[in-house]
């Protein structure tokens, strides 16, 4: 096989020649000058090659300078075979008869001219013919150049170049090299195999052994390729005659001269640019060992196209090509370097050479460049390209790790096993970017000559002083700690340890504490994984409900915190059963056989509106739990010891707590539970102050709002359950609230999350771990209090009714008339439960007169805070009429109101707006039970609130199904509100608790409670009588009444 070569001949173009391994005879001619090459292929062979390429070419000779052996005597010289030939030689070696007489391997000693037969190939041949076996690097480079030329043509980066010498084809083409194309052409020149420019021009010996300039060779070859390719693409086009005539006559030349100016090579203005890289191999390609070194590379970068950067090395190598791009590129480079030297004097030494290309920097120098110089150069307008590890500088910090806790790794923690006073081994480490360093890495850091260290595959710049401070701290830091201290430290880290009085002073770390880790149960607690890893408690036997799996995890988590005497915040989404979890926790701790059962009651503080619900739920789920309500006008006064002695759970309201704080704080409690704890967000309010005075072994807060996003609330709640843990409110604001809320610092938000996660459990309905456990519909019945006004009105209606019925009885007028009176009275009672104004029809103000309305407002606030939507049903159109504007004004949202008088078109518009997937529609949809209870699809709502009870639950369910139907993808939370101790509760008991009876009495299924009107007057009286005629005392104090503090929270 022939080894195929090509040289570029000015004027002739590509000259194909070949070495033939089968030729061995040496030339005998002693002619002066170039002797014939002894093993070059002859013309016949070259014609064969051309035919394989699908081409022909003019035959000729060329004198090439080729590496040769031998001494000064020309006769002794012989050309050295190319690598390509040696490879094919090895292939042929087995064929003895063809054994080549190639020179042995003495290696080339000098260049000598040799005459070789050549075939002149048209440039277009290489553009289109596939490569042949045996083609050498010269052909490969020329083909690549040809592809570049074709690309230029495709992009139209060519201009006409009239060729009057060929009148039949007078329109030639030339490349336009601008921007990156110019740089590419320059790179081709740098890559050109020397043999391409081997032709000895005019047969003259090589001056200084230099040979033709590769830049010129590339320029000529590129022009030839472009011309060939452009003409080829236009082969089928009809060229405009006028243009051809003008080109042939040279008439275009003056105009094209102006075009040439536009098409002149340029890349716009450029600036000096410095690029810092690590030197990983030496100039021989060997990996560097020992002290690391860096290379600061000089270059020019186009101002218009920053990705276009030319290194100083290529500027010096080929100022010629770039001179067309920039005026005097080498002078521009020097000017930029000279300008930079005034900012960076060390540069001076690197310039003291003929062609500065860059400078080597040691570790110290690199550090100084990065730290002190780079920014200044950048400001002065220079380009500075730094390694990515520098643009994201490494942080030096500390991590702490606790080991040796009671529960080793891998063993599941059991609630109650981990004790707050337990001692754990505690160790500190330096950390870079939060990653703790190994001993070896720390040693490397200590012994590094410059504060630039290679760690874990990346360079790290470290501040010397901070490093020293960190190391000194490691020496003196204590080696053990209690579990409680570790928890405090974890919460305190990053808030300045100095703010924490309860933190041991020897723990005042000089560097930010990046992470506190621990093994086992403590580790789980710190990482927020406790809920997932905890051994689950069995449902307490006294609990009359089956916990859902996530609730069981929640109860176990609460018990675990209780064992540690660490306060917790249960922030599950509304509807997930926070009440049930707390009741289950109490049931667990107060089991009949448990010797460790607390001897003291738990104090539960809730808004007035849910005090009754707590009482009712406790009675329903844990009937054995002794619940005392300390609330309302009829509550016990004076010493509460007797009350406490007989109670497991004392339920009170924030208002009562504030008023009775002196007495309540006199006793020691097993636990303090704050329900709807977000309501006590103002830490200076009387309620918040009262909460702090309560002496309890354990503290819990319940909230359904996403407190982690409301920083003022988060601090207040955390401080209420773990006093002092997050430092002072001022420190918290400076460290977390301002950076997160005002500056949007996600890293700070992350740290805060890490600090609070041991104490916060929040599951949302969409959590994968929760969603599978959730039913499609969660129904709760909420028991609202009556205000004093409601209670007295209620009593009046009851008395009136009794009197009227007795009168009728006496008069013997029963039947239809009695029935009418009973129904009217029942309606009035239900109206009073909703709101006094509904009975009085006086158009009076609504606020603070109805326990039910107060609860509705709380529920609505929670729903709106979660960005969700609700349906609210009432059987009283008049109530809806009052409520719609009230809620709209109270919450500043649109409230759709659908009733019997709503036109069909208005109804359709409301529904469409409410269902609008963009979420812009009204978040609240108030409906009268009659008008909106059937037929509609309102699946945009996740919440349904029944403001008043209907006699027949089937009617309520039908209304509920407006939201709970096909198209509803989320869990629907249904709340039925009723007033405790009233006819509403009696009916509810009948419906829910006494199914059999209910089935009998309600069996008719009608809307009218026939069974009620059939009761005797005494039965009826018992049915409607008010349990607590005093009613609730007006909740004259909002839990959050103190002066508003500007905490920056929304």
């Amino acid at each position, binding site marked *: 096989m022939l080894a195929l070569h090509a040289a570029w001949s000015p004027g002739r173009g590509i000259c194909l020649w070949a070495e033939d391994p089968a030729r061995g005879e040496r030339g005998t001619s002693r002619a002066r000058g170039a002797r014939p090459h002894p093993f070059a292929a002859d013309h016949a062979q070259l014609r064969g090659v051309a035919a394989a390429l699908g081409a022909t070419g003019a035959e000729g000779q060329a004198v090439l300078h*080729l*590496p040769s052996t031998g001494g000064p005597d020309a006769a002794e010289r012989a050309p*050295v075979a*190319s*690598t*390509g030939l040696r490879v094919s030689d090895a292939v042929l070696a087995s064929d003895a008869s063809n054994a080549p007489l190639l020179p042995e391997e003495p290696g080339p000693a000098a*260049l000598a001219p040799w005459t070789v037969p050549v075939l002149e190939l048209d440039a277009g041949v290489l553009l289109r013919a596939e490569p042949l076996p045996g083609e050498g*690097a*010269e052909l490969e480079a020329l083909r*690549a150049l040809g*592809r570049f030329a*074709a*690309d230029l043509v*495709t*992009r*139209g980066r*060519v201009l006409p170049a009239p060729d009057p010498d060929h009148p039949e084809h007078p329109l030639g083409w030339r490349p336009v090299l601008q921007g990156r194309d110019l*740089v590419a052409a320059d790179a*081709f020149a*740098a*890559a*050109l*195999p*020397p*043999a391409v420019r*081997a032709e000895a021009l005019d047969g003259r010996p*090589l001056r*200084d*052994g*230099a*040979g033709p300039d*590769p830049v010129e060779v590339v320029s000529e070859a590129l022009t030839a390729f472009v011309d060939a390719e*452009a003409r080829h*693409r*236009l082969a089928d*086009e009809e060229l405009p005659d*006028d*243009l051809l*005539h*003008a080109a042939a006559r040279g*008439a*275009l030349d003056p*105009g094209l001269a*102006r*075009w040439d100016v536009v*098409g002149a090579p340029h890349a716009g203005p450029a600036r000096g640019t410095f690029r810092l890289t690590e030197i990983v191999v030496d100039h021989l390609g060997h990996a560097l060992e020992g002290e690391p070194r860096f290379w600061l590379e000089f270059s020019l970068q186009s101002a218009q196209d920053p990705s276009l950067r030319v290194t100083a090395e290529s500027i*010096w*190598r080929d*100022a010629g090509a770039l001179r067309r791009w920039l005026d005097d590129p080498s002078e521009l480079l*020097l*000017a*930029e*370097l*000279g*300008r930079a*030297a*005034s900012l960076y004097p060390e540069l001076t030494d690197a*310039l003291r*050479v*003929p062609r500065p290309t860059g400078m080597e920097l040691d570790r110290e120098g690199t550090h100084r460049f990065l730290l002190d110089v780079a920014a200044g150069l950048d400001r002065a307008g220079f380009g500075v390209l730094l390694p990515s590890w520098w643009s994201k500088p490494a942080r030096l910090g500390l991590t702490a790790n606790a080991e040796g806790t009671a529960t080793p790794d891998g063993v599941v923690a059991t609630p109650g096993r981990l004790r707050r006073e337990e001692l754990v081994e505690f160790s500190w480490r330096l950390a870079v970017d939060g990653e703790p360093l190994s001993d070896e890495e720390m040693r490397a850091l200590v012994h590094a000559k410059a504060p630039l260290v290679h760690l874990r595959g990346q360079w790290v710049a470290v501040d010397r002083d901070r490093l020293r401070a960190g190391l000194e701290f490691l020496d003196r830091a204590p080696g053990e700690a209690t579990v409680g201290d570790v928890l405090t430290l974890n919460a305190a880290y990053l808030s300045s340890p100095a703010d924490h009085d309860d933190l041991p002073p020897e723990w005042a770390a000089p560097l930010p504490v990046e992470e506190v880790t621990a093994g086992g149960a403590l580790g789980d607690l710190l990482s927020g994984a406790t809920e997932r890893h905890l051994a689950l408690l069995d449902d307490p036997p006294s609990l009359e409900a089956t916990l859902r799996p996530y609730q069981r995890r929640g109860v176990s988590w609460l018990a675990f915190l209780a064992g540690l005497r660490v306060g917790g915040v249960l922030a599950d989404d509304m509807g997930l059963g926070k009440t049930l979890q707390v009741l289950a926790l109490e049931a667990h701790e107060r089991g009949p056989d448990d010797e460790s059962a607390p001897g003291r009651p738990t104090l539960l503080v809730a808004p007035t509106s849910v005090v009754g619900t707590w009482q009712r739920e406790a009675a329903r789920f844990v009937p054995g739990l002794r619940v005392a309500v300390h609330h309302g006008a009829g509550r016990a006064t004076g010493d509460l010891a007797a009350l406490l002695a007989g109670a497991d759970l004392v339920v009170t309201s924030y208002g009562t707590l504030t008023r009775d704080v002196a007495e309540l704080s006199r006793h020691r409690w097993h636990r303090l539970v704050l329900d709807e704890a977000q309501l006590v967000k103002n830490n200076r309010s009387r309620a918040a102050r009262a909460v702090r005075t309560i002496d309890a072994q354990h503290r819990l807060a319940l909230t359904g709002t996403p407190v982690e996003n409301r920083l003022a609330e988060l601090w207040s709640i955390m401080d209420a359950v773990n006093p002092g843990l997050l430092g002072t409110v001022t420190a918290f604001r400076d460290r977390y609230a301002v950076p997160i809320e005002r500056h949007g610092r996600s890293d700070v938000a992350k740290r805060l999350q890490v600090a609070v996660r041991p104490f916060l459990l929040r599951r949302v309905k969409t959590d994968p771990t929760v969603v599978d456990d959730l039913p499609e519909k969660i129904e709760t019945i909420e028991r609202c209090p009556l205000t004093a006004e409601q209670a007295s009105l209620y009593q009046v209606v009851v008395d009136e009714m009794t009197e009227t019925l007795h009168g009728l009885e006496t008069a013997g007028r029963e039947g239809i008339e009695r029935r009418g009176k009973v129904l009217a009275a029942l309606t009035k009672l239900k109206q009073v439960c909703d709101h006094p104004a509904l009975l009085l029809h006086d158009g009076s103000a609504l606020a603070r007169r109805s326990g039910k309305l107060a609860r509705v407002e709380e529920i609505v606030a929670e729903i709106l805070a979660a960005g969700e939507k609700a349906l609210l049903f009432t059987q009283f159109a008049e109530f809806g009429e009052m409520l719609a504007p009230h809620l709209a004004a109270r919450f500043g949202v649109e409230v759709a109101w659908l009733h019997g008088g709503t036109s069909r078109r208005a109804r359709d518009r409301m529904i469409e707006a409410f269902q609008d997937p963009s979420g812009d529609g009204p978040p609240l949809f108030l409906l009268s039970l009659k008008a909106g209870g059937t037929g509609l699809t309102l699946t945009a709502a996740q919440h349904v609130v029944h403001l008043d009870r209907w006699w027949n639950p089937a009617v309520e369910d039908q209304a509920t199904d407006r939201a709970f139907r096909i198209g509803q993808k989320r869990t629907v939370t249904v709340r039925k509100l009723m007033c405790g101790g009233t006819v509403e509760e009696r009916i509810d008991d009948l419906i829910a608790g006494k199914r059999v009876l209910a089935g009998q009495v309600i069996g008719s299924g009608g809307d009218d409670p026939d069974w009620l009107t059939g009761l005797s007057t005494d039965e009826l009286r018992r049915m409607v009588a008010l349990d607590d005629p005093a009613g609730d005392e007006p909740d004259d104090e909002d839990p959050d009444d103190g002066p508003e503090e500007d905490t920056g929270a929304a």
Partner: protein
Amino acid sequence: MPLERPPGRRPFREKFPDPAETPAEAPRDFSEYGKRIAVEGGLAARSRRGAIGESWWSGRFLAVLEQLGVGGRLTRGKTYARAGQIVDLAIEPGEVVATVQGSRAEPYRARIGLAPFAGEAWDAVEEAFARDSWYAASLLGGTVPDDLEDVFASVGLSLFPTGAREMPMNCSCPDWSVPCKHLAAVAYLVAERFDDDPFLVLRWRGRDRATLLAGIRSHRDDAEPTVTPLADVLDRYFDAAGPLPETASAAPDPGRSEALLDEMPPLGVPVADGGSRVDAREALRPLYRRFGAPNG
């Protein structure tokens, strides 16, 4: 670039008697004899107060003047320079020539000479510059490096004049003092020019910027040829000298292929059958479209 201004465009006012015509006792300071005539568009010093000349190299030049101890004239020269009395100024090899408007109608001709260095000396300097890029980099970056004088010293020359004797000064004004205030004004303006363009220091000594840089280039190429000699690469003669650049093949895009054509100015092409012309761009447009759609 020397500033040249045709003399005819200057508005002159004849207002004061020529003080030179009055016989006078020496020494006299002619400044008291007349008010200078304001020059519209004259070359004024940038400096408004205090010293003129911010760089060490212009300071070195001015120091020679200040050695002469003609304080009053220097002060008045400074005022002249600031007032814009200099009509034109050129720093040429071997001399600074300027036209200064005094109190006479006819402006004075002022000249500060300095012996230019011989060609061989400059050749040696250029060679030194080619070996050590620091000098050219500094000068191109706008400063005279503080070790530049060492280069000249190494060939036995002093870049800055060592004394006033090396700087023959003359002025067409009647003041016999050297320097007169006109020469002093010129010197201050020259100092500011030096601040702005350190190459002018060298130009005065006989080498302009372009010649100097070309000389450095040629010496640099002599020192280290840019083209790798074929004789140096015998062992990799048939191999690529470096990685071939990646030239991504452009996807055919007819719109894009006309972009360069669109940048071109109109080019009229005579039509064969008459005197009208067509625009070559429109004639070529179908061809460029064809380039952009090689397969279409």
